[in-house]
């Protein structure tokens, strides 16, 4: 396969707080290729957002610091770039769409002013051209009567339309990588479908790479080419989307797939993962999933397993299941 657009390896970002060191990201590895969607899936607090902030080097200093790993963007390590050069990449070649569009929009400026500002900054054009481009950008993301709505303020848009504005803003500089952090979590399902369709168009028409962060396995299955499953700050499994669903290896991935109700399928009983996700400030030694794991052996709570390559495109972090021969997928994971 061609060189990945983005290759993250061994990423570690920690927060040094009064309560101790919070290892928010502590072993994240994945690749993203042009024209593909990588899903990052995991429960709240597992380090998904901190991973994206680390890529953009926006982790809040001085508490938060990226203390290890590599982030190769077209072969260049972003962690080693001077801040001035990083500014040229941020919002320009790598753009971020966050869960709450309100946090990325300024409430006292019209959406037009905000998009134009981004266009002028990145494309060095005059205001009239910028305005034309901004209207075109709003039309491209499906905002009706863009030429008049461009002069409205963010609060005059519905949640779904606001998310479109943010996407238009992100796209206005034609980024090569779009990071979407739970872009539809706050939206209703019919609006979510519209936004996901839009992101799929972006991927196909612009050949952009997308990192899509979500906790919804349905969104992963519909949208992603590759998937990184995170648990307690670490990638525990990484593979192409078909393998993740048909032949999941990590007990956490398997557990997640068994615990969700599936539309159109009547299971009399769900199989939950017992227990709670751990606190990142009080992680036990060894595998963080050990207290909840059905495959637990003594070694699990003594030593942290490494992310091991078990197939061309399949990596797993587990003492027990990484070495196992392929077994038929667990009931409930496939049909």
């Amino acid at each position, binding site marked *: 396969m061609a060189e990945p657009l983005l290759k993250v390896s061994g990423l570690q970002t920690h927060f040094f707080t009064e309560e101790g060191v919070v290892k928010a990201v502590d072993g994240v590895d994945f690749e993203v290729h042009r024209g593909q969607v990588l899903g990052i899936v995991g*429960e*709240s607090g597992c380090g998904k957002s901190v991973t994206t902030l680390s890529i953009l080097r926006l982790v809040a200093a001085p508490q938060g610091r990226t203390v290890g790993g590599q982030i190769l963007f077209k072969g260049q390590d972003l962690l080693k770039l001077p801040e001035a050069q990083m500014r040229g990449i941020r919002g320009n070649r790598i753009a971020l769409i966050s869960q709450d569009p309100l946090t990325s929009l300024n409430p006292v400026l019209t959406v037009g002013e905000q998009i134009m500002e981004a266009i002028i900054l990145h494309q060095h054009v005059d205001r009239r051209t910028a305005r034309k481009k901004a209207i075109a950008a709003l039309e491209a993301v499906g905002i*009706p009567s863009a030429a008049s709505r461009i002069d409205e303020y963010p609060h005059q848009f*519905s949640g*779904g*339309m606001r998310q479109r504005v943010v996407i238009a803003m992100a796209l206005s500089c034609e980024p090569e990588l779009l990071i979407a952090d739970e872009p539809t979590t706050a939206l*209703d*399902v*019919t*609006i*979510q*479908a*519209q936004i*996901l*369709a839009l992101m799929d168009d972006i991927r196909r028409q612009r050949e952009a790479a997308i990192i899509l962060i979500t*906790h*919804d*396995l*349905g*969104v*992963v*299955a*519909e*949208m992603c080419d590759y998937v990184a499953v995170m648990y307690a700050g670490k990638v525990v499994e990484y593979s192409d*989307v*078909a393998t993740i*669903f*048909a032949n999941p290896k990590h007990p*956490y991935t398997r*557990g*997640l*797939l068994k*615990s*969700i*109700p*599936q*539309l*159109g399928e*009547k*299971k009399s*009983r*769900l*199989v*939950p*993962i*017992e227990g*709670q*996700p751990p606190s990142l400030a009080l992680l036990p030694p060894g595998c963080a999933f050990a207290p909840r794991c059905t495959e637990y052996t003594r070694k699990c709570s003594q030593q942290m397993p490494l992310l091991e390559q078990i197939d061309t495109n399949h990596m797993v972090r587990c003492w027990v299941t990484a070495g196992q021969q392929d077994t038929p997928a667990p009931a409930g994971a*496939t*049909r």
Partner: protein
Amino acid sequence: MTDKLLEVKDLKKHFPIHRGIVFRREVGAVKAVDGISFDVLKGETLGLVGESGCGKSTTGRLILRLIEPTSGSVRFGGTDLLPLKDRDMRPMRRRMQIVFQNPYGSLDPRMMVGDSIAEPLRVHKLMDGKQIQQRVKELLERVGMSPTYANRYPHEFSGGQRQRIGIARALAINPEFIVADEPVSALDVSVQAQVLNLLADLQDEFKLTYLFIAHNLATVQHISDRVAVMYLGKMVELASSDRLYAEPKHPYTQALLSAAPIADPTQRKRDRMLLQGDLPSPVNPPSGCRFHTRCPLVNEVSNNLCKTEDPPLGDLGGGHLVACHLHKVAPASHLLATVPRA
């Protein structure tokens, strides 16, 4: 025939909108719930789905009389609740409880969880102090928590644990009927199944009847015997859970199901039925069928009927109710009195 525990008829809630400070006047109303009728059978789970703002929570609150309706009737166990004075309502309240979505907001942060769970017992003066303590311990155990947690505060617990506490509190006075308003929506994926299983077990054990409100279709299908779909304050379809998912009849239900992502990459949907535009405002809902501004099938109906006439909720047979001009059906027989004649 199974008994009806709850009968809701033509229920409406219009929240007035006021303008002006000195001369406060009513300038309109949010038609949050605008004439809905349905029954809940004893021992069943009726799911209530629809997008945010369509009136699900308001419906739940109206049934429990946590808010007063604008009009309509709610009968519980044969008794009409709405005319009841406080004193007569009290014994009825003992039979119905609610579990809220937000396990953070629904517990008083300054109260030990044992006291929160005991509160309904104290309000209804059902037991003395010793008995109450014993009951709290039983309840905590029943929802899968250690009885020693009674002396802790809500902030010491995770979301899933707090939702268990909320459920223990709802169970305290042995209700027959529980409105569960998005009880797992705020929980981590891996914890949702625990709480759903707990709710199912409690239903079996205590013969509970649920109104289960949620926006996640897969969750609702999983837990419900029958499912009702709401759109902008109206009920558009109601059927057994299996039938609704296998043969949705209302274009809105079809769109909802089509939009829901399926957690199986081999079933990727290539031709999704995408709805155009946003939800209209419940202050000025569209004329005729409220869904007509977004309905992909609006032109299939002749004479502009969708834009001019509100389709009645009709029975397709077998208790499959739908309100859509595409389906020429007899008005739902048991709701005859409340369905406007075309």
